[in-house]
Every structure is written in structure tokens, then in C-alpha cells.
């Protein structure tokens, strides 16, 4: 399998990687809520908020190119939403940046704010998953009280999604190898349905085998695990820094820029 895994840098070692997954998750959650709740007409303040995830990525030695590549991958949905803003809201507004002053519409301001919020929150999310092993994240979420069933399902999803993608690639390759002409929409649809059916049957087959493998190792419906997470002094220091950063932005920087 040669997929570009979202967590491909999670196995590195850095001060950010060594932080407890619960602390990183809660900080990312609070940070995201703070960014999302910013006013829709203030794109400039977002650059200050971006310093947080940017620092996490730099200290965690995550290439920025990797982060922006993943942002681009999921951007089409947000792009559609953002670019429609100038079309329906043309209220004129004056924008000042230092000595520069120009006039634009509220729609364009909203467009930039949506894009800015999307980029900043995505940077925070990528910083979280690129510096935290998925297994640690799941253990952390379990410790934070998320339902065990959800954790198990997320664990299986992470384990088997790559295998499923791989199988889909193999089926597509097998079709491409024998597809010598365009057969028309109806025929293509029929082929696609057959391919999906084959993928579904193989998935059911795999699920049955996994069930056998679990039972063979004594699984009787009760999920047991060993937690290896521990809050240390560096986690408290990180929390303190993150809280100071968010409070500083909220009480000191925001009033100046808004």
C-alpha cells in the first residue's frame, strides 16, 4: 500500500509528539471553537490565531507543504461556499490596513473570513493528527469519556479504510486493463454497480474473518485495553501556554484589530 497517510508524521519524535493526546485534543477543540466564533468581518485577526498551529507544525517538524497539500485536498467544498458570498452580499464596506484604505463588499470580507477560518482550523487539525498517533488519540478520547463503541468503530475504520481503498484501486485497475472503449453511461453505471457490489461482498467476507480472529483470541463482547497515557509537567506547561495565547488574543489583540 502506498497511500499518503494523514498520520505519516505521527511516528516522529519531537516535544509536540511527546505531549499527552488528551491535552492536545482539548487544546485543539478549544482553539477551533475560538476561531469559529470570531466575527465574520475580521480576516486580519485570523493571522494572529494562525501562529498557534503554525508553531505546533514547526516544533513537530511537520513540513508545511504536507499541511497545505492536505488543506487543498479538502478545500473544494469550502471554496464553493466562500466564493458564493460576494454574489449575494454586495453591501459596501471600507477596509483599512495601516495607512491603506480601500472599499470592497461585505460578501468579499465574508469570503476571506470563511477561507481564513478554514485554513487556520485545518492547520490545527493537521497539527493534531500529525503529531499524535491515532491509537493514542483513541485512548485519549476513551479516557475523556467518549463511548467505547464509538472508539472501537473509529479504530476499525482507521485500520481498514486503507485496505478498502487499496481493494478499490485494484478493482479500478482491473477494469482499466480491460476497458478498451467507452461503453456509454448506462453500461458504465452497471459496471460501477457490479464493482461496488464486489467491494461490499469482500468487505463482508473480511468482517467475518476479523470476527473469527477476535473470537479465536477470547473476545466475548467485552473490550479490554491497556492505557499508556500519563499527564506530565510538559503537558501542564503546554496547556498553560495555549491558554495564555488564547486569552492574550481574546483580551489584548482582538480589541485592537477589530
Amino acid at each position, binding site marked *: *500500500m502506498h497511500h499518503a*497517510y494523514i*498520520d505519516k508524521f505521527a*511516528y516522529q519524535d519531537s516535544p509536540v509528539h511527546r505531549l499527552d493526546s488528551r491535552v492536545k485534543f482539548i487544546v485543539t477543540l478549544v482553539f477551533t471553537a475560538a476561531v469559529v466564533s470570531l466575527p465574520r468581518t475580521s480576516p486580519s485577526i485570523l493571522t494572529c490565531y494562525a501562529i498557534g498551529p503554525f508553531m505546533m507544525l514547526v516544533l513537530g517538524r511537520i513540513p508545511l507543504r504536507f499541511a497545505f497539500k492536505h488543506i487543498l485536498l479538502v478545500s473544494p467544498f469550502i471554496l464553493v461556499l466562500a466564493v458564493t458570498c460576494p454574489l449575494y452580499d454586495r453591501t459596501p464596506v471600507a477596509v483599512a490596513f495601516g495607512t491603506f484604505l480601500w472599499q470592497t463588499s461585505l460578501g468579499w470580507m465574508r469570503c476571506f473570513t470563511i477561507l481564513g477560518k478554514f485554513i487556520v482550523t485545518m492547520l490545527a487539525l493537521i497539527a493534531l493528527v500529525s503529531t499524535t*498517533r*491515532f*491509537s493514542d488519540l*483513541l485512548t485519549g478520547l476513551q479516557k475523556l469519556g467518549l463511548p467505547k463503541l464509538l472508539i472501537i468503530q473509529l*479504530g*476499525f475504520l*482507521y*485500520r*481498514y479504510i*486503507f*485496505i478498502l481503498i487499496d481493494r478499490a484501486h485494484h478493482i479500478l485497475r482491473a477494469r482499466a486493463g480491460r476497458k478498451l472503449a467507452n461503453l456509454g453511461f448506462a453500461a458504465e453505471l452497471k459496471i460501477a454497480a457490479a464493482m461496488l457490489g464486489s467491494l461490499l461482498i469482500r468487505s463482508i467476507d*473480511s468482517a467475518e*474473518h*476479523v470476527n*473469527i*480472529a*477476535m*473470537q*479465536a*483470541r*477470547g*473476545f*466475548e463482547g467485552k473490550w*479490554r*485495553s*491497556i492505557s499508556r497515557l500519563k499527564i506530565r509537567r510538559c503537558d501542564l506547561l503546554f496547556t498553560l501556554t495555549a491558554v495564555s495565547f488564547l486569552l492574550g488574543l481574546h483580551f489584548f489583540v482582538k480589541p485592537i484589530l477589530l
Partner: protein
Amino acid sequence: MSKVIEIENFSYEYPDGTAALSNISLSVEHGQRLTLIGPNGAGKSTLLLAMAGFVKGTGKVLVDGLQINRQNLRKIRTLLGCCLENPDDQLFMPTLFDDVAFGPLNMGLDAEQVKNRVSEALKTVGLAEMADKAPHHLSAGQRRVAAIATILSMAPKIITLDEPDGSLDPRNRKNLIKLLSGLPQTLIIATCDMNFAAAIADRAVLLDKGGVIADGDAIKIMSDSRLMTEHGLEVPGQFKNIARRSTSN
């Protein structure tokens, strides 16, 4: 020697009515290295599943003297480690550590004992440094031995392996042979690769069309070129000289 597996007149049909196993009688002694050989569809995998209690047919199956039934199933699962054909089915947890710890945790061992079992099992298969890796980050050869580690951590008396050599390169196959040859447990290996079977087994059971065709010394059965060819198999390289000699005699 004590018998760890005893099967008497076991038969099983697939839900569509096709006979998968017919009247199988077989016993395996403690410490034996038995290989189940036979062409595709002979019933090798089904027989392994029957030994682990996943296939319910007619007849008697005893594991270390215990009849397979609901009451004994938990005990049987700790006595017999069942390793499936595809390592991706066997490795279902987010990390290798969690996967190898899954069995011991279900056995009710405490955290310290589980950690010891995991590190011991991973050391045996040579993956001690990989404990925190996700299974999809391992190579095919590593996944194969990792699947065996998930069984070893439960310290079973008997290990069944279904096509453990599938899609392995010669180096990884050689490493796997070395690993399996060094295990103290009773091994029951289903395989279509005669060279692999010949390198490990001291006893061979030839299955075809759901029935036992031959059962005995591995060299004697696997060097019988007529028998092997008749059932779509081949004489392994290391037994070809013996086969030639017996043909000329």
C-alpha cells in the same frame, strides 16, 4: 505421547449443501509438527476452523481432551491459537502492541503480565521495535510474523496456521521456517507449498475432496510422486532424490 487433537468421523457441509469435510478421523500428538496438504478446495482451512470450534458439523472433535461445546470454548481458545490466512484479518487493532495484547487481555491477565507477554511474543518474532507501529505500516513479511505473535502472546499448546507462507518472498519464507521450527508448541499447518511443508513438518496429512487420502510420515507421503501428482501436488525439491530412488526400485 498425549493426544492434543482427536477428531472422529467429522463431517461438515457448507450452507449450500456442498460437502466440505467427509468422515474425517485424525489425531495429533503433543509436540508434533503436522502439515495438512492438498489442492485448493480440499478442505484444509475448514478442518483448521473445525479444530478451533468455528465450524460445527457432525462427529467428535476434542482439543486436549475437551469436547468442543459452549462451556469449553473459552478454555479451548486459550489452548489452541488459530492464525488465519490473511494477516490483515488477524491484525485488526490500531497498533501492533494492542493487537498482540488483545488475546492476553481477554484471558483476564493483569496489565503487567500482558506487557510481559507482548514484549516476549514480539521479541520471538523479531518485531520488538515495532510495537507502536500501525499494522498497515508493516511489510507483508512483518505482518505475517506479527499475526503469529498475536497467537504466541496467549501461550497456547497448539497453533494452527492457514497458508502462513502465502505471498512471502524467499528470504521471508526462510525466516518464517526458522521461526516456526523453533517454536515448542504443537503445530498444524495447512499449505499448498510443498517445499514449505517439507521444511517444517514431521507428519503429513493429505486431504482431497474433503477426505483424508494419506496420513503418515512427511517424507514418506511427500516423496510419493504418484500420490502427489494424482492429487494435483508436487514432490518438494528436498525429497526429489528420495522419490527418484523409490521409483527406480
